[in-house]
């Protein structure tokens, strides 16, 4: 039987971007308040799972043509690279650097190398979780 999922699909097209933007917000909010790469990544995965529910695996793969294993790899590289940067300055591994910068538009902003690390975590979580769901979902 062919189900009629016009409402779900139309809503998803809208809600996907809301969730995605919110996940980016949560990711940046993690700098000082609750949030961060892990939660942000899970939210993004949630958005992608919603897409998978509304459409099918093939459509989603066409819409998001990433190899999510590679996404995981890039995330790991980012995280390791940030942590390993300290090796070149001969300070203990994982030592982070931060300072306040005055940027156009944003005003005085505190920038932190830990954010690059968190971006790595974000990518790893998205990559790994989506790979898992695709693997199980593709089987049925």
């Amino acid at each position: 039987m062919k189900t009629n999922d016009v409402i779900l699909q139309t809503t998803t097209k809208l809600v996907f971007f809301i969730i995605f933007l919110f996940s980016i917000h949560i990711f940046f909010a993690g700098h000082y308040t609750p949030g961060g790469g892990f939660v942000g990544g899970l939210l993004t995965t949630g958005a992608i799972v919603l897409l998978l529910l509304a459409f099918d695996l093939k459509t989603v793969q066409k819409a998001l043509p990433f190899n999510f294993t590679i996404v995981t790899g890039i995330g790991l590289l980012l995280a390791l690279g940030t942590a390993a940067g300290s090796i070149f300055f001969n300070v203990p591994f994982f030592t982070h650097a931060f300072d306040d910068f005055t940027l156009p538009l944003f005003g005085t902003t505190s920038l932190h190398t830990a954010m690059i690390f968190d971006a790595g975590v974000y990518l790893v979580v998205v990559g790994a979780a989506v790979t898992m769901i695709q693997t199980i979902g593709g089987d049925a």
Partner: protein
Amino acid sequence: MEFLMAIVVGILFMAAVYLILSRSLLKVILGTGLLSHGAHLLILTMGGLGGAAPPVLTEGVTDFADPLPQALILTAIVISFGVTAFILVLAYRTYAEHQTDNMNLMKGNDEHD
């Protein structure tokens, strides 16, 4: 408060042991999930419940929460999340291959497969 938490942890462990000893693979996995929840709650309790106090220690502050147990739990939760996801996929594959989720039927050694 600690006393109450100890009881909750005890109940979680009890349920976990009961589920782990059952025959169905899915129940066993749910049991390991409960077991790790109990363990996480135990860390939180063991670190001392700080209540609503902030996890910072500066001069003049006498009432503060220990931030370390929370960091430990976060790590442990992420790990158990990953392991549980893996084990669920594995259980699914095992079920597809063996056509059973009964642990009793998954015994065996070289002589009788």
